[in-house]
């Protein structure tokens, strides 16, 4: 996004200069409370509220980011008077520039970033995705804490007539060095809010950290174990109605007529609305809405072409055969290097479409007032997307999005569909709040899917067994193209989709001759962001290939990878070496017992994992253990990192073992947990996580645990059985768990 396109939009620098991109200003709401920066609110009773502008969907972001503020503000995060919530209003400064500009805030400078930050800020683009919350907030929220502390300290100095060195910071207050004159933040906040915020503040040096880096327990656990936590689906408002949506099960079908006579006659049913390709049933109880939706007689007009998995896969293969490329990156001379290689490998890897299956089905609650202003309670990864969806339905400017806890997101909640249907229902019943909940079947059939892929690869090894060439073409669908077409009105250019080849194009191994290409095949299947996005396919491809090459040259898989990592990849090497050590690696097994490894960098972190498993004669697998090592830079909270690596791994293992969405006669075949299985406690391995001690800037942790799971699993299967599984899920090769 450069200055040119901004000029084209007629937005001048004069206006942009007024967009607040620092958030350090203070604000009083009468005597009731004071905001000291956009992240801290203090009330006279000394309740300190920390605003975290990222949705809490399991990743622990409300805890991890609050730690940053607590560190600088001297707060005990577990104290009763410290609260952490999503902010109640959208602000320019909550824009996730890191995600949209793919850059760390610490590295943003120059006119391009000046423009881009303000332009995006003017649209208030908060968003949770790409494992960016900590990366985006690391400096910003520590600075917020420091600015608030500075202002409170100034207020205390004025009140007591002392110099700063006479004051001692304690939890949510100051006292004099002799212990006298305690002043709470609540006593000081009003005065502090009328002071000028400092331009520059000193942040604590890492050596002085007392909260960052500590195993701080999550702030949301107490509410989540007592049933008090309110997810989107738990929002309850006075006289609220309950609704559901039903769309033709044939994707792309249009509705020609609906007979709702029976549905309307059922108990509690208030309304049936047809909106484009959806029928919305409104009732006084969710189950009654579900029942009535079952009773609808929907006549639909199927699209010209019915989706079918075999055809989709054939389409990908045709793309490979025709080399109809949309992206290509070449270095060296891969063709010549492969032709002259001592040994050549030709392989094809295939991955399926996948659903998100967030534990909390899609839902949204909307109150559309008679005057066109709207309040919406949304478990969303993008408040901006929710707001735009509602505004495009005719709401006025006053649309307030309350971001609730989300029962999982994994990319699914970056969409606007679930907001749209709820808003349509609420618009028809202005003045009455309506909560619209999708059935699990609807959630799965009308998901946006992780794209399938086929990679066709030729690799060359020289006499010494070194990898000299990789020629890889990946046929898949562009996530970006599908996402933007579905969610953003008007043209939205993005150049080429950098997620398609992420992790493949930039594979860390030294290979002098390489061609990495993509054919992104257009499809009617809705394609979406799925935990770790392109990496979820590409780590499987790269790390399976490395394992095959190691085996072909008779080398140990650790040693083979280490030999192909140059000095630029010292961190990758350290992860591998630590992993070899922690896993107690002594070869990769055999005779039904297997150990396999994978290494992959994504979202500014590096993860290595070894899977230990046993395979019985009937191809039944017991996953015994996973040993994982992560280098995610500075560890803000080891408990959260461990949990995310374990969770990410189980997510990846679930997909690798069972995950597959099929299309037949235009419909999604799998529609609940019987046909779309999940790893459960009885089969889930023990996952041991080791963290690399690092002083680098923090990386993401929500997604990097996922990509390594599948390749470590198939590499381990190979070690155990000698069978190389090149197609996921492993169930297609007859393995069960």
């Amino acid at each position, binding site marked *: 996004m450069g200055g040119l396109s901004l000029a084209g939009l007629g937005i001048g620098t004069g206006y942009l200069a007024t967009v607040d991109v620092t958030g350090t200003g203070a604000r009083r709401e009468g005597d009731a409370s004071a905001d000291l920066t956009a992240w801290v609110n203090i009330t006279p009773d000394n309740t300190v509220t920390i605003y975290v502008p990222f949705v809490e969907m399991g990743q622990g972001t409300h805890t991890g980011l609050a730690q940053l503020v607590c560190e600088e503000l001297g707060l005990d995060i577990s104290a009763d008077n410290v609260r952490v919530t999503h902010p109640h209003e959208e602000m320019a400064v909550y824009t996730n520039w890191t995600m949209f500009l793919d850059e760390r805030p610490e590295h943003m400078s120059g006119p391009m970033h000046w423009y881009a930050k303000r332009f995006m800020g003017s649209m208030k683009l908060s968003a949770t995705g790409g494992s960016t919350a900590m990366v985006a907030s690391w400096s910003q929220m520590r600075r917020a804490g420091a600015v608030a502390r500075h202002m409170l300290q100034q207020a205390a100095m004025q009140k007591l007539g002392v110099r700063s060195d006479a004051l001692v910071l304690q939890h949510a207050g100051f006292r004099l060095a002799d212990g006298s004159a305690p002043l709470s933040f609540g006593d000081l906040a009003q005065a502090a809010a009328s002071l000028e915020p400092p331009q520059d503040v000193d942040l604590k040096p890492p050596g002085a950290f007392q909260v960052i880096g500590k195993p701080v327990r999550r702030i949301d656990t107490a*509410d989540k174990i007592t049933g008090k936590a309110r997810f989107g689906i738990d929002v309850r408002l006075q006289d609220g109605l309950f609704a559901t949506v039903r769309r033709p099960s044939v994707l792309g079908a249009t509705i020609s007529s609906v007979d709702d006579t029976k549905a309307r006659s059922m108990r509690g049913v208030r309304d049936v609305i047809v909106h484009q390709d959806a029928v919305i049933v409104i009732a006084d109880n969710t189950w009654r809405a579900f029942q009535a939706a079952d009773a609808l007689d929907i006549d639909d007009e199927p699209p010209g072409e019915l989706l079918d998995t075999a055809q989709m896969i054939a389409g990908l293969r045709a793309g490979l055969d025709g080399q109809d490329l949309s992206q290509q990156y070449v270095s060296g001379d891969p063709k010549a290097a492969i032709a002259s290689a001592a040994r050549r490998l030709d392989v094809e890897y295939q991955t399926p479409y996948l659903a998100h299956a967030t534990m*909390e089905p899609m839902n949204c609650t909307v109150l559309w007032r008679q005057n066109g202003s709207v309040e919406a309670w949304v478990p969303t990864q993008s408040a901006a997307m929710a707001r735009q969806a509602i505004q495009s339905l005719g709401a006025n400017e006053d649309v307030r999005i309350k971001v609730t806890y989300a029962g999982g997101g994994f990319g699914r909640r970056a969409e606007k569909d679930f907001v749209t249907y709820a808003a349509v229902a609420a618009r028809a019943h202005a003045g009455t709040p309506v909560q619209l909940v999708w*059935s699990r079947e609807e959630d799965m059939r009308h998901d946006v899917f992780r794209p399938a892929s086929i990679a066709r690869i030729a690799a060359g090894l020289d006499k010494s067994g070194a990898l000299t060439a990789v020629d890889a073409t990946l046929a898949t669908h562009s996530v970006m193209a599908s996402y933007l077409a579905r969610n953003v009105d008007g043209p939205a250019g993005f150049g080429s989709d950098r997620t398609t080849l992420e992790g493949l194009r930039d594979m860390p191994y030294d290979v002098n001759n390489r061609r990495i290409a993509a054919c992104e095949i257009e499809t009617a299947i809705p394609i979406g962001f799925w935990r770790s996005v392109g990496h979820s396919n590409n780590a499987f491809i790269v790390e399976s290939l490395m394992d095959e090459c190691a085996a072909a040259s008779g080398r140990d898989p650790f040693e083979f990878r280490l030999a192909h990592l140059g000095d630029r990849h010292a961190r990758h090497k350290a992860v591998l070496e630590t992993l070899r050590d922690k896993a107690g690696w002594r070869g990769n097994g055999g005779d039904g017992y297997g150990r396999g490894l994978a290494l992959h960098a994504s979202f500014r972190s590096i993860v290595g994992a070894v899977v230990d498993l046993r395979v019985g004669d009937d191809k039944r697998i017991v996953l015994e253990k996973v040993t994982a090592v992560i280098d995610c830079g500075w560890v803000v909270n080891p408990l959260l990192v461990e949990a995310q690596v374990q*969770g990410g791994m189980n997510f990846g293992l679930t997909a690798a073992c069972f995950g597959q969405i099929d299309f037949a006669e235009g419909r999604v075949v799998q529609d609940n947990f019987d046909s779309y299985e999940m790893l459960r406690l009885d089969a889930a391995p023990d996952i041991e996580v080791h963290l690399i001690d690092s002083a680098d800037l923090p990386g993401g942790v929500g997604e990097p645990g996922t990509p390594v799971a599948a390749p470590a699993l198939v590499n381990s299967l190979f070690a155990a059985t000698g069978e190389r599984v090149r197609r996921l899920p492993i169930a297609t090769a007859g393995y069960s768990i």
Partner: protein
Amino acid sequence: MYTLKINGIERTFDVEADMPLLWLLRDEADLTGSKFGCGIGLCGACSVIVDGALVRSCIISVSSVAGSDVRTVEDIARDGRLSAVQQAWLEMDVPQCGYCQSGVIMAVTALLETTPRPTASDVEEAISNICRCGTYDRIRAAIDRAAQILAAS
């Protein structure tokens, strides 16, 4: 009209005989701690304890539990004190998104009531809930811890 004792309080509801208990709890009784995950008894998010036995409330009708004693996650803490299972959950930092955890806590509560010192295979058999966030390691650790707390009390 159906009368049930929910978390110790007798309440009467005018609902259909075949309304699943889950939707009576969530939409009629305003107890949203029990969650909707699948609606067909496969995920365990809706688990509650009826007359001492663990049930998946999405597939049990109101008429079949009339007159019964229903306990939900809202009533596991007593007099402001967390149960042993909840204490263990807090100590082990189990929940991620937390959506499945009400159901898991109910399942573990029921398990420990009959089997206070469960073996690993007891646990594997009894806890078949889906946790999409993959918190299984900590669930296992927290079950051990809860058993310890119970044994000590």
